[in-house]
């Protein structure tokens, strides 16, 4: 009995120290000097714009990586092709490589004149670096693995038989996908989308390198936090952090709501 209690105490203690304490601290600090500074920061046009940029990047990255993740999962599980192992390994690359390095890679690739792609875009009058496209690219890059990683084991477990049964019953490839495959992996996809969203909202490293962090133009919510801190607006930094933390908690709650239903389905 004592050992079991001890184990629980260690697990809970760890969570409190590592997760809950910082969250509680942010919450406490935010409202330390009342609601006014919080409201002032959050209604500041630059802050609002930073949230807008984050939402746009997330809004593009999540659907893109959801489609890619499902297709990728289908390819890895169902098809045989040369380079399949490589694809499978590359899906995890964004998890293995530090976001700052990813940012640097993108920077080098899209740098005007010197970058491979950068010079082409420069000629055709598009600005990639230090603009919204670079932020979107960085966000897409770092959030690639999540849907695919959720979908692949579920597809493996699902097997191929239900789809074959549907085929013998007259279903075309398209009908099989929409009526059999997708409903069967829906919880994996939803879970993957939740994780992708969380990752996109929280992305800092790669975005910090390629965005240029121009206030009111290319700042995201996360870079805004740092900016506010550097400008000694700690209350504002806390407020933005709190919003991000709240979203994270909501994401967690969504996940816990989803999980048990997954078991029942």
């Amino acid at each position: 009995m004592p050992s079991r209690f001890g184990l629980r105490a260690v697990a809970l203690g760890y969570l409190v120290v590592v997760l809950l304490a910082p969250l509680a601290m942010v919450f406490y600090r935010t409202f330390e000097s009342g609601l006014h500074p919080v409201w002032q920061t959050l209604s500041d046009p630059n802050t609002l714009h930073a949230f807008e940029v984050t939402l746009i990047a997330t809004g593009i990255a999540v659907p893109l990586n959801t489609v890619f993740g499902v297709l990728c999962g289908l390819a890895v599980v169902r098809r045989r092709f040369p380079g399949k192992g490589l694809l499978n390994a590359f899906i995890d690359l964004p998890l293995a490589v530090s976001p700052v390095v990813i940012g640097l890679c993108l920077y080098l690739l899209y740098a005007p004149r010197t970058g491979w792609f950068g010079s082409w875009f420069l000629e055709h009058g598009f600005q990639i670096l230090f603009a919204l496209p670079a932020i979107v690219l960085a966000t897409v890059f770092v959030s690639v693995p999540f849907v695919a990683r959720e979908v692949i084991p579920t597809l493996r477990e699902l097997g191929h038989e239900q789809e074959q049964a549907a085929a013998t019953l007259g279903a075309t490839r398209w009908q099989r996908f929409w009526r059999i495959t997708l409903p069967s992996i829906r919880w994996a996809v939803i879970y993957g989308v939740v994780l992708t969203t969380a990752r996109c909202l929280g992305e800092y490293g790669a975005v910090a390198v390629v965005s240029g962090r121009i206030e009111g133009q290319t700042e995201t919510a996360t870079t805004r936090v740092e900016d506010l801190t550097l400008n000694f607006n700690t209350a504002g930094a806390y407020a933005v952090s709190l919003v991000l933390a709240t979203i994270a908690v909501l994401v967690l709650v969504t996940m816990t709501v989803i999980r048990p239903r997954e078991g029942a389905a």
Partner: protein
Amino acid sequence: MSIEIRNVTKHFGAFTALDDVSLEIPDGSLTALLGPSGSGKSTLLRIVAGLERPDSGEVRLAGEDATRLAPQRRNVGFVFQHYAAFKHMTVRDNVAFALTIRKRPKQEIRERVDELLELVQLQGFADRYPSKLSGGQRQRMALARALAAKPGVLLLDEPFGALDARVRAELRDWLRRLHEEVQVTTVFVTHDQEEAMEVADRVAVLDHGRLEQVGPPAKLYDSPASDFVLRFVGDAVRLGERLVRPHEIVLRRWPSDGAVEVEIERIAVLGADVRVDLADGSGERLSARLRRDELEDLALERGEIVWANAESFQRLSAGDAEAGQALGRLDGDVDAIDLGTAGTAPTGLDERLDVV
């Protein structure tokens, strides 16, 4: 819908699953593909359904070349060993699937599904999910689903393999009756020779990707085309150099041409029949099946040394056997004059002993 399989060959890497198999399945028949695991029987069924493509050869459905046709365009119903139930749909939606994707009117779908659920005795289960059904019920649902769009061919891949013995026996019976009712060309795969003999009107035996023999169950049993078929369909024992059926063995107290000297190890009375376990000089064990009165007439006892010989039936075609023609024995004995009729037990051994 008739099925013609012509010279079909299929490899999986270095493994030859099917080697030049040709088989015709007449319209309306109930055929079993019988063989041990790895014999290619499931692969052949999947090729007919279009779930596998043959490396060479041809599949014709109702006389039309279907070799390159996608499964959804073949008008076949397929039942999988592990049911392949659509887990996210109710029983009703599962059965309705083929009709739903054909965009049939709701009313028509409803009526057809009700009719099918009645046929498979699942009327009360329409709104359940497959996870709330037993194995036998899931398999019946899978059958109803396969029949919904009125397929020309019903294909079943080891349909009862995952069920326990009692449910299996029930479903066999039921499949037989269903076939009489629906009259759709049916092919099922099994490794269980009893199941094949009991349910099918034609059995195709496969081994190592080759077709060994096709015919009605009685013909396979009475005139097997190869040692493999003899061993696989019904019991077979090795007597000297020959493979024979246990009930073909005759025991005598003196030697005859081709007889093998054996010691009686055990006598087991199994109702009307008796199983006599024997061991020959080299220690090889075999068992003979005698009628009880034969044994009593011979008054055999455990530990005695006797001579075993086989009354091999002449390998005749099924037509002849069905005509009930008398078959001569081939054991070259003096008592070769002794005649028996296929399907009936040989005449008493005592008479034969008298002749000798």
